[in-house]
């Protein structure tokens, strides 16, 4: 039995099957982007162990195809096992060993990127300074204790917790948050516009005058969901402070008092705070003369890091990102009226893996073909003499 398992995981047929299945997955995932959008398709097809049917949220689901993580993991195990089984150390095989090592690093690097890379955005209008970036695909309920005169204490509850937990009881809060409704995407309308049949989902703050309609998930590249939720604030010593509507569409946070402190409540894109800040000095959007065709985008920013005494200007433009403290700032977009720039902020601890892997694979191929070339030349010389 063990031998059969070893034979299976070291089989080169398994490699071929994995590659074929991977190709089919890429084809299906690419087509799925039409209806799901690139982000959702990536998550369901490539960043999962299985592709499920029907999609999540229907009460049941059946795995119908291996997902990207499963295929990648099997391929990685197969590659390592097959290589280990057939491993024989000779100089003549150095090229093959190097090439395999490079492929293993590529696969492992891809997996680590999927697991640990964090992508977010920093939107800056002229003169704006920010020390945080935002993940427009994730949402958090920020419960902010504003009592201190200098610092706000923020309890950030991610949307994954809001979706999963009916009641949130956290040590940092003197109250429980009971999630009455959660909408991944929604439309907000004033009750006066909707008619008598609509009922508000909240009874406190502006939410008491607003109707919330669920909406299908946003799939376009330039669209995003407008999440909303109704949360009831229940002090831990008893009673209720009412149900509040929190929504990304509301804008201003709402305020209430509890436990002798003043709190703010807001649903917003997830934030990643940084120990440094970025100020936009100038955004430039050049076009080819006489056309609306973009030629170049660039953002001149000032990077200020008080911990490291850094205060310098940086020009970020296409293919010239700013790399600082393990994060990379790319010129990703801009506001339509050119009044603001959008920088993509990527934290990827394994970003170096593909570069290292490519160098190793290239070296391996050079060595391997070099041996063959030298051998061939020798044979030819011997034949001629």
């Amino acid at each position, binding site marked *: 039995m063990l031998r059969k398992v070893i034979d299976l995981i070291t089989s080169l047929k398994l490699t071929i099957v994995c590659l074929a299945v991977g190709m089919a997955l890429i084809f299906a995932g690419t087509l799925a982007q039409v209806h799901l959008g690139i982000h959702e398709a990536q998550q369901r097809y490539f960043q999962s*162990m299985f592709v499920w049917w029907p999609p999540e949220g229907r009460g049941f689901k059946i795995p119908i195809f291996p997902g990207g993580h499963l295929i990648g993991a099997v391929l990685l195990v197969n590659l390592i096992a097959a290589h280990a089984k057939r491993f024989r150390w000779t100089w003549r095989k150095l090229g093959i060993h190097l090439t395999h090592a490079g492929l293993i690093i590529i696969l492992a690097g891809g997996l680590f990127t999927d697991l640990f890379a964090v992508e977010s955005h920093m939107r800056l209008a002229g003169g704006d300074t920010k*020390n945080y970036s935002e993940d427009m695909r994730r949402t958090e309920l920020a419960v902010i204790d*504003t009592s201190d005169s200098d610092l706000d204490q923020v309890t950030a509850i991610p949307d994954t917790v809001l979706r999963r937990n009916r009641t949130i009881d956290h040590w940092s809060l003197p109250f429980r948050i009971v999630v009455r409704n959660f909408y991944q995407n929604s439309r907000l309308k004033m009750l006066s516009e909707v008619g008598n049949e609509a009922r508000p989902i909240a009874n406190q703050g502006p939410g008491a005058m607003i109707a919330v309609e669920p909406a299908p998930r946003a799939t376009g590249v330039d669209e995003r969901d407008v999440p909303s939720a109704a949360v009831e604030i229940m002090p831990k010593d008893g009673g209720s402070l009412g149900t509040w509507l929190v929504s990304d569409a509301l*804008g201003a946070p709402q305020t209430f008092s509890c436990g002798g402190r003043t709190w703010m409540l807001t649903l917003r894109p*997830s934030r990643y705070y940084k120990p440094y800040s970025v100020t936009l000095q100038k955004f430039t959007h050049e076009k080819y003369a006489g056309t609306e065709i973009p030629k170049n985008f660039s953002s001149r920013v000032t990077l200020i890091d008080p911990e490291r005494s850094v*205060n310098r200007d940086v020009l970020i433009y296409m293919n010239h990102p700013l790399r600082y403290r393990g994060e990379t700032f790319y010129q990703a977009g801009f506001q339509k009226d050119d009044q603001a720039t959008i920088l993509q902020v990527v934290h990827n601890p394994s970003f170096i893996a593909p570069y290292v892997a490519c160098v190793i694979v290239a070296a391996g191929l050079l060595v391997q073909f070099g041996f063959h070339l030298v051998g061939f030349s020798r044979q030819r010389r011997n034949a001629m003499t």
Partner: protein
Amino acid sequence: MLLANCGKNSEIKVYRVSKAPLEESTPQQQDAMPTNTAAPRMPGAVAPTAATAVTTPPNWEPQPLSQMRQASFLVKGDKGAVADISFVNLGTAAGNALDNVNRWLDQLGQPPITEEKLGDIAQRLRTSLGDVIIVDLAGLPKDADPAQDGRIIAAMATTGNSTLFFKMRGNADLTEAQKGDFIKWVAAVCNAQTEIGLAQTAAIPPRESGLPQIKWKTPESWTEVSPSSMRYASFSASAENGDKIDISVVTFPGEGGSDPDNVNRWRGQIGLPPLDGNAVTSQIAPLRTADATFSTTDIVGAKARTIAAWTRHDGRVWFFKATGPSAAVEKEKPNFVKFIESVRF
């Protein structure tokens, strides 16, 4: 591998951050510094000129002033490193920016640059005096001591009748370390120039510096006055007995702090104690105009009174506030309401 299906963002996080910018922050806080950056100490030592009216970091040693220099400091670093900091106020014939930058480059033994190159390297700092051009130049002249030379960071502000030069020259690493404080000092001096009226004619109102344009109809009895660096617009109204009412329009990007915080700050300004959040909320009334819905409040103190209206529009918060003696504000309140109703974004 199962980790792959666990969300990267599934934990509740607790952290502390600096408060959002508030409406009436001090000029030092206005210098677009990060909210979590410690600003250099700025205690209120008041002196007759703008350059000395702002306090400098403790490691800046004041030096005797020359005929040219209106402020002079020496900073000492490790291993004998020094940097010399100066402030000079010249007339309009001080030459253009390129001439001066090339003069400084020459002092560092570097070749001159073109106008285009200057555009690339110059950084602009927005102050109440207008945009200040900042350049950071490196180079070590022949036979110079690297402990004392190697870099010039200079700032230049041109007003209607003068040109202000700020210069820090010295050891390259030390000037780099001092750059943040130097820029804050430049901004503070420029803002102080406006505050003490040395360069009022050159003060550029924020309305001309890229902020969104909004419109309103100013009541006839109000007089528009030059706004300070903080304000988008400023008005004054007089009562029959000569009492003055100060009306301000201020805008900030973002949410501008919570309503209770803002209202309690205004209460504090007229000597009233803060209220809890619910009490504040009960004193806020909506005012719907043709263009927006404003929150309004009326705060009556023992002698003074503040009426305020604010709204959040296109990612900015707009504060409109009138403060003055209670009776005068009461009389002016209808005009203030009409003013708010006339605001168009």
